[in-house]
């Protein structure tokens, strides 16, 4: 069965090529159904490979397949080679699975869009690139996928390119990612320089051999790879592009900017675990602490956002920080576990948000929501499952994975754990805030306000808006809004994801070694680099209780503030938080100000100094030349002709003298 490995990426590739040729002719909804079935086929193939590998002994669960040699140059050679190992198949399973559901959802969501088929073309291309990323057996093929998903992300963020803001967001995502790619590329050069190959197998063999590689080299590689990972996985300071990426259609936000692409960095570092193991201690520590900082930082921002997608975007940044904490603490299984459960519940939350936005005539401002649970029962019910999962309420999936990450942090450093617990409490708080503002409380969508897209940044206008909200609460729903449940293509994926988000924890239950399915599955590719938990069972229970209490406290605080109105929400939604600590603005101002002036200066230098020198020389020559004008015609064209004539004469002369 594992021989079907090549079929996995072949499906979306065929989908992409077919849609490129015939997408427009297929039209709506055929193109959508076709694309969905292609990704569904990829999922089936992945499942087949999975069961094939499962049937083998633990140490033999690797299937390799090389298509052709891609880049041969001297000692350097890289192939289109695919790796079917526990990690890549685990990734491919949830990527294709969730993609199938999101494709289905998009058929409903993108209904009526003039570029319907093009949307699915990009989605199929994205899935293909993502599979290249996780299945490549060398760094360069991973990089191909890495850049490919980046390009697809760019296309999809700026999908509605008519709006300048969307176009800018797409460009911002691509360029910021390129900053990360700078690190990735240098890491590749360093790896090649050190071990002479970019294949994972050669690299790990060299790294793990007794003489191995120097610690400083391994550290440099890890740091450079982390720069790449921070770009793709939106870690501080490169996270800037992700909140803006919400400009794309909501299925894109769910698939690319929550479930799959943004976890690439976590995948990459997990894949590289043998190199991390050889690096100096400060490198993984740095990863963990930056992860923690990002988790906290983004959570504080999420608390004050009013755009429902922005809340989820900052939440994604924050949750990715959790994963990096796990990676930095050496608990790769916890990172992958949280990545998978996060994919379930965050995709669910985004799709749910999309359903709400869809029902609310494309309004994304939560201040205009409220009491939607009655109008959208399925959306609300599934959303609540996602909310409980992300808040860490047992027995939902998020509880189990977040617990593992917190345990990893605790094993690493007590302060790390404490601060991460704080981030978890804040997660429960802002998600509860979102749910209460959207589905419960009073309906605030009664007043016929002008449906301007209110941006998260407009915190200054909040006061005025709050008054309107209070007034609005008393009135009956106006005719402006018709909240309604979404079509079945949209809610079926919601229900499916809700199921996964609810029970996803069974992948890796901590009770005994036998229930840790994921840990056992991933064990061969971690080469013994997974840190072993030393905490006693009692400590673990205590930590779990802390986590549960933390989650409940977060939810309770949100309920007090947003349902019972016992806490002044203005104190929480501070303008500085709403504006993301002004970081984005600072960067933008720098780029638009000093940065741009530097570019302008270089351009001025080119036009006036360098070209000026040329023109100056020309002027001097002309002046001198004008004195000699009598003897010269001064027309370059004449000279040019002269050259021709001269050459012809010369050639003729030489041809004549040619000795045959």
């Amino acid at each position, binding site marked *: 069965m594992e021989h079907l490995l090549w079929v996995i990426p072949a499906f979306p590739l065929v989908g992409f090529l077919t849609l490129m040729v015939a997408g427009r002719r297929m039209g709506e909804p055929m193109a959508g159904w076709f694309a969905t079935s292609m990704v569904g086929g990829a999922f089936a193939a992945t499942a087949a490979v999975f069961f094939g590998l499962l049937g083998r002994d633990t*140490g*033999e669960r*690797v299937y390799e397949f090389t298509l052709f*040699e891609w*880049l041969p*140059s*001297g000692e350097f050679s890289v192939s289109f080679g695919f790796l079917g*190992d526990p990690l890549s198949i685990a990734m491919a399973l949830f990527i294709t699975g969730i993609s199938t559901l999101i494709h289905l959802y998009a058929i409903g969501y993108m209904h009526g869009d003039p570029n319907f088929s093009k949307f699915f073309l990009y989605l199929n291309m994205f899935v293909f690139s993502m599979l290249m990323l996780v299945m490549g057996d060398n760094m*360069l093929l991973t*990089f191909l996928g890495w*850049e*490919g998903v980046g390009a697809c992300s760019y296309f999809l963020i700026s999908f509605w*390119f*008519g709006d300048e803001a969307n*176009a800018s967001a797409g*460009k911002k995502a691509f*360029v910021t990612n*390129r900053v990360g*790619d*700078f690190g990735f590329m240098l890491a590749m050069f360093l790896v*090649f*320089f*050190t*071990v002479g*190959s970019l294949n994972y*197998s*050669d690299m790990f*063999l060299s790294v793990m051999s007794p003489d191995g*590689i120097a610690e400083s080299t391994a550290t440099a590689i890890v740091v450079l790879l982390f720069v790449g990972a921070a770009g793709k996985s939106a870690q501080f300071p490169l996270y800037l592009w992700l909140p803006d990426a919400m400009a794309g259609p909501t299925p894109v936000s769910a698939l690319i900017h929550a479930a799959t692409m943004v976890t690439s960095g976590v995948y990459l570092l997990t894949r590289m675990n*043998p190199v991390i*193991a*050889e690096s100096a*201690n400060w490198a993984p520590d740095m990863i963990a602490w930056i992860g923690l900082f990002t988790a906290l930082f983004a959570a504080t921002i999420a608390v004050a956002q009013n755009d429902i997608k922005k809340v989820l975007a900052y939440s994604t940044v924050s949750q990715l920080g959790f994963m990096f904490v796990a990676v930095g*603490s*050496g608990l790769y299984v916890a990172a992958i576990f949280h990545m998978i459960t996060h994919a379930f519940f965050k995709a669910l939350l985004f799709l749910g948000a999309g359903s709400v936005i869809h029902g609310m005539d494309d309004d994304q401002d939560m201040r205009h929501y409220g009491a939607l649970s009655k109008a959208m029962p399925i959306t609300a019910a599934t959303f609540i499952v996602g909310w409980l999962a992300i808040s860490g309420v047992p027995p939902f999936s998020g509880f189990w994975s977040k617990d593992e990450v917190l345990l990893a942090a605790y094993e690493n450093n007590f302060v790390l754990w404490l601060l991460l617990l704080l981030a978890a409490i804040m997660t429960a708080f802002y998600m509860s805030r979102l749910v209460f503002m959207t589905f419960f409380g009073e309906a605030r969508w009664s007043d016929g306000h002008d449906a301007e897209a209110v941006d998260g940044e407009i915190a200054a206008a909040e006061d005025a808006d709050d008054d309107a909200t209070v007034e609005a609460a008393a009135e009956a729903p106006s005719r402006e809004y018709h909240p309604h449940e979404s079509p079945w293509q949209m809610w079926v994926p919601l229900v499916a994801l809700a199921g996964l988000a609810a029970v996803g924890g069974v992948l890796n239950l901590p009770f005994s*070694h036998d229930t840790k399915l994921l840990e056992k599955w991933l*064990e*061969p590719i971690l080469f*013994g*680099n*997974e*840190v*072993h938990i*030393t905490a006693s*069972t009692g400590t673990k229970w205590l930590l779990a209780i802390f986590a549960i209490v933390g989650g409940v406290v977060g939810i309770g605080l949100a309920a007090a503030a947003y349902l019972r109105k016992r806490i002044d929400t203005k104190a929480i939604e501070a303008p500085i938080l709403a504006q993301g600590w002004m970081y984005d603005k600072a960067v933008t101002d720098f780029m638009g100000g000093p940065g741009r002036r530097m*570019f302008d200066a*270089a*351009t001025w230098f*080119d036009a006036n100094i*360098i070209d000026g020198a*040329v023109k100056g020389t020309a002027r001097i020559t002309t002046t001198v030349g004008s004195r000699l004008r009598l003897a010269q015609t001064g027309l*370059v064209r004449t000279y*040019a002709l002269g*050259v021709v004539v001269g*050459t012809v004469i*010369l050639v003729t002369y030489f*041809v004549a*003298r*040619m*000795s045959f």
Partner: protein
Amino acid sequence: MSGFIFAAEAAEASALSFPLIPALIALPLIGALVVGLIPTARDGIHQQLAVLFSGAAGAISVWALVEFDKTDAGFQFVSQQDWVADLGIQWLAGIDGITLFLVVLTGLLFPLTMVAVNPGHDHKPYFIWLLILQSGCFGVFVALDLFMFFVFFEIVLVPMYFLIGKWGHGNAKYAANKFFLFTMAGSALMLVSIVTLVSLQARESGNAATFSVVDIAENLAIGQGTARWLFLGFALAFAVKVPIFPLHTWLPDAHTEAPTAGSVILAGVMLKLGTYGFLRFGLYLFPEASNYFAPVFLTLGVIGIVYGAVVATMQKDLKRLVAYSSVAHLGFIVLGTFSLNSQGIQGGLAQMINHGISTGALFLLVGWLYERRHTRQIAELGGIQKAAPVFAGVFTLVMLSSIGLPGLNGFVGEFLVLLGAFTAHRWWAVVATVGVILAALYLLWAYQRVFHGPTEGDNADTPDLSVWEGVVIAPLLVGIVFLGLYPKPMLERMEPAIDRLVEHVEAGVGGDFTEPVPTVGESGTFSELVETTHAEHEEHGSHSDEHGDEDHSDEEDHGDEEGGE
């Protein structure tokens, strides 16, 4: 000593009796003659005839590609004829792995541009100049005699001068003059170098004078100091032609004011005359001097990469932006060439081909956009994607190739150059990699302003890509994708000649230089790796994790986690 060329001759004799190289050079010239004999009034026929002759030459170049023996590092299809025997000047031409793809690029790009662009006026001289230009470019790439090389190197200036001056836009006369004077100034020094080299070589070696590059390079007899001076003479001519910072200011003017065909040929083929020159008449003729001056050229290459990108970002004219992007892309070629190892040089050579395809296509598209909108000012364009989605799609593909997206052709050269440069001179490569970020910045920003955003005014009426235009640009798009996904056929044909060149450089520099190569560690399959490590862990039980544990825990108590195994 020059044994390899005789071996190559033998191979050539057995493989092919057709005078391939003379045909390459002669066909376009005959075409020029034929077009010249047709009366001016019969407009359309000039184009057809020109395409026919140019295409025939192109077909022969493809034939050379097919017949090329990829295991042979020497020159193939050698064409040799005494010319001025007393002075040692001969007609000596051949194709090796370094020139093969440059010849094919010349063979294919010319007929394509002739088909793609209508000059608008004066058809007859236009096509005559283009045909002469093609012949000249072939000549430069195949010439193995210094004198012959110089003649062709100079000949190509003339048609391009007239193409820019007569069919160009705006300040075309100024641009043409600048182009001509700049390159002539460089060439003058090269001529002095050639003559000095030949006479010194004859005196020092005691042999009869010869202009043959191979003979001179394989038995270089002149002193180290002299060689360095002579190298600089050649290098200056090439540096202007490439162009290398700070000698680049003729390029934006020439590219921008040139007619579309001129820009395509200029970027696609003529800029490569300089970079090719560095390989054949820099590294090959003067290995020691090339190594000695390498830091200078590496630095200038890196400056070109960053500086070209920065200046490109701020351009207001779309065509000028693409022109400055060439400065950056050619910086990569210079960087790779002077890395003096096989990845760097091969990457540089691949970049020459790929830049020819991508930038050629970009200029073609910008030209077509100009025909539609009669402006190249970025500020006057906007939202074109809505009016012309296919055009925008094609532009996107070409743009991504130029940005260096893996899977498309631009990446291949860029990556190998950086890889080679990193191996040889780490910090130069680090700075050059910044260019990768900047390339995305200037192209995406330009794309956003031109194709995205609201579609207003005349932009709304922009016609989409016509079927004919699609057919014309399709070969370039195929090249972009094919060479990105499967560059092996190209790389493996280049490799023997490049390895030979690198060995030659190594021998020429002497003891204190060896090709910078990476350490080669162990190698094996992933399956074996997983199997053996898993078996080890089984054996050693839970206490074998020396990798993971060192930084995290001192305790060896792994508790119940390992119990189940």
